[in-house]
């Protein structure tokens, strides 16, 4: 009898451990119920809609409880410790001004790509979500709300005004799904980042644009002085693959998918990048550099980061899009002009799990128009997290002798509102440099700037093409096959053709022509 009781008790204990795994899933588990919740908050916020027109609206006119919204706070590289304090400070401003209470949801930039989808599908309430990947990943499975109803000159004056200047609104099949933040500077420039001390060592002449010959000479001279070093630190991991091609570090082109390109800013027809003469010459050059010992022998599989390449003295340079943010101890070897071809893939979106869409958009618009709030969220509280050195140039420094690794509030990403008004840490450049860079880029606009491609018809072909590229691209573009690259190159080109690369490019051209005609 005692044994039986003991057995029963153990059995009961084990059964109860099964239920310990049931957590509380506070919000709806069935995502498809969200539609009903939305109409509830719509009717409630309609009365506040009229009061929210002017951003400096009288606080007294806004009625009702503060509307609560959840906004993702993406951080990189380290978790931002003091987020709660800054959140309270933010609410001190937003509750009286626009009657919105903000709750930040910290999420690491590294995990966001996979976490977002899981959060939405489990019904987690998120009102504003910043994403840094292709928006189609989310719109295809219906995870985002269209924003057409919310972006009007009356409800979102700040966003609307700026969207006339820059292509801020991202459309997918005629519905707005994303709003881009305004960047501190626009454009990019193909180039290599070289350590300044090596450059001074060989005392090469400084030029505006370097050619392949210049680079060969530079590498040769560096290799003579440092025989154990591989002057060009290009690796598969840092420059090639997964939709990128290292060709873009050497020439200004507009990429279509990862295999088509507009070869110059006036062209309106995309071509297969891999069959162009320029690409072939570029592969030839990489193979020559590899054989001459200027590129790491295991460039194709090396996992060293850019910092590690430099600090371990393995490389003197690496391919990096040049921009005004370059550090003082480096020099950028410009390989082509500053240009702009695409409008970037960072945007604010609204998931379908949102509870207060109207309030969320109101908050977002407020951040776009109010530089003080944007800087508070992006940089922290003045005096506590940073000290203002120069108000005119908006230069700041960390407090307590911290640097970016130890400060309790540092976020390497800046996507809050209008970054042209944002503060800058010491190492960063002055506003004029950014503005002149943007100007140069906008003068060199590719026709594809502002165009978004809808890939539904050719999705499977794109996967097939990408898998061909996955096989050959890294080895070819890092020169790792040496002088025997041509046979593999021919294989890649013919396999791309069978995979249907021309169909993808044709589809792009059709959509692009329609877009150009509509301009």
């Amino acid at each position, binding site marked *: 009898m005692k044994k039986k009781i003991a057995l029963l008790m153990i059995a009961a204990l*084990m059964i109860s451990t099964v239920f310990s795994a049931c957590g509380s899933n506070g919000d709806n588990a069935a995502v498809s119920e969200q539609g009903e919740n939305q109409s509830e908050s719509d009717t409630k916020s309609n009365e506040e809609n009229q009061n929210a027109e002017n951003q400096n609206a009288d606080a007294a006119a806004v009625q009702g409880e503060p509307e609560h919204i959840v906004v993702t706070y993406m951080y990189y590289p380290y978790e931002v410790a003091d987020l709660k304090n800054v959140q309270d400070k933010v609410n001190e401003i937003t509750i009286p001004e626009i009657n919105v209470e903000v709750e930040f949801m910290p999420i690491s930039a590294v995990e966001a790509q996979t976490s977002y989808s899981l959060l939405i599908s489990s019904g987690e309430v998120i009102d504003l979500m910043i994403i840094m990947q292709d928006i189609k990943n989310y719109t295809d499975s219906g995870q985002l709300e269209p924003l057409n109803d919310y972006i009007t000159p009356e409800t979102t004056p700040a966003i609307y005004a700026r969207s006339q200047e820059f292509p801020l609104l991202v459309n997918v099949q005629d519905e707005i799904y994303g709003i881009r933040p305004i960047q501190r500077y626009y454009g990019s420039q193909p180039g290599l980042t070289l350590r300044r001390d090596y450059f001074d060592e060989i005392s090469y002449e400084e030029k505006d644009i370097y050619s392949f010959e210049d680079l060969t000479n530079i590498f040769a001279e560096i290799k003579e002085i440092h025989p154990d070093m591989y002057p060009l630190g290009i690796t598969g991991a840092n420059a090639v693959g997964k939709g990128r091609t290292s060709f873009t570090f050497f020439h200004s082109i507009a990429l279509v998918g990862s295999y088509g390109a507009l070869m110059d800013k006036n062209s309106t027809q995309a071509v297969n990048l891999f069959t162009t003469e320029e690409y072939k010459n570029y592969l030839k050059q990489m193979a020559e550099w590899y054989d001459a010992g200027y590129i790491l022998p295991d460039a194709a599989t090396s996992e060293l980061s850019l910092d590690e390449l430099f600090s371990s003295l393995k490389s003197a340079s690496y391919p990096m899009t040049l921009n005004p943010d370059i550090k003082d101890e480096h020099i950028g070897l410009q390989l082509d002009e500053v240009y702009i071809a695409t409008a970037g893939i960072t945007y604010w979106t609204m998931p379908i799990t949102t509870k207060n869409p109207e309030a969320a958009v109101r908050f977002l618009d407020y951040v776009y128009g109010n530089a003080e709030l944007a800087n508070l969220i992006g940089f922290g509280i003045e005096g506590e997290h940073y000290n203002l050195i120069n108000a005119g140039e908006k230069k700041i420094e960390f407090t307590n002798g911290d640097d970016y690794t130890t400060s309790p509030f540092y976020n390497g990403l800046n996507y809050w509102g209008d970054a042209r008004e944002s503060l800058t840490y010491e190492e960063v450049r002055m506003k004029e440099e950014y503005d002149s860079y943007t100007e140069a880029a906008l003068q060199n606009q590719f026709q594809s700037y502002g165009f978004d491609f809808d890939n539904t018809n050719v999705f499977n072909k794109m996967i*097939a093409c990408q898998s061909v590229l996955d*096989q050959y691209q890294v080895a070819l573009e890092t020169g790792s096959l040496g002088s025997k690259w041509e046979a593999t190159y021919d294989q890649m080109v013919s396999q791309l053709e069978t995979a249907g690369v021309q169909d993808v490019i044709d589809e792009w051209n059709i959509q692009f022509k329609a877009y150009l005609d509509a301009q």
Partner: protein
Amino acid sequence: MKLKSVGVNLKKKKLRWRKIIPVYMLLLPGLVYLIINNYMPMFGIVIAFKKLNFKKGIFGSEWIGLDNFEFLFSSGNAWIMTRNTILYNVVFIILGIIIPITVAILLNEVRQKFASRIYQTLVLLPYLMSWVVISYLAYSFLNLESGFINKSILEPLGFKSINFYQDSTWWPLILTVVNQWKSLGFGMIIYLASVIGIDGEYYEAAKIDGASKWNQIRFITLPCLKPTIITMFVLNMGRMFYSDFGLFYQVPKNSGMLYNVTMTIDTYVYNALMGQNNYGMSAAASVFQSFVGFSLIILANGVIRKISRENAMF
């Protein structure tokens, strides 16, 4: 008379019932877990046939039939990845029977218990290591600049270094060796358990009859292992279309030039769908693998039934 006998029978059943209930209750948590984790999600197989739209939910989403399976077959790689998956699995199954049994029999012969335990642990150790660690171990052997094979074997002997990660000729051998090194321990333990269970009297009787060691193995050990071998074989057949992701992705460091011999269904799906949130296509890939695996199990079991009925699993 009838009533009496019925009463007796009922009494017997009640007695048995009382003894059995606690045991079944011990089974209950595991059963509940199995139902929740393995059986309930089965309805999700429909996701593979739909274009999942979160606004409409799983059942409201559009039915697109076999469209999600297309991407598996549309690239020229369908043949290569299927061929690689199946061939490797065939080799692994065969070696996975021969080598662990050999080691188990050998281990059984070791007299000193202490030594036997040590060998057992050492053989099992690789099984417990993560594939990422193993990939770096392999890297230290194979890499061009400082790898053991290149620097300490090939070059001193005067041969040219081999760029293993760009040259696909050696990889079937490398992957087979690495996989056997890692999985040997687990199979060995299973077979060792069976070998130990073989009655010592058989061996004594055989010795008296003058059987050599090899004969003893051939006529006593192996036949006694037959049920275990068949069970393991049928289970492995079910995984014929699965591959060990860590082995085929981590060890070759996902090097493109090796895809001809290292691409399997799992690595292909991972590379193709990474970062795309396309649940439909990912579901399609695993439904494909499960379906084929299931068919193969039924087939293998059917074949074994014909050969030796009592050894079939069901």
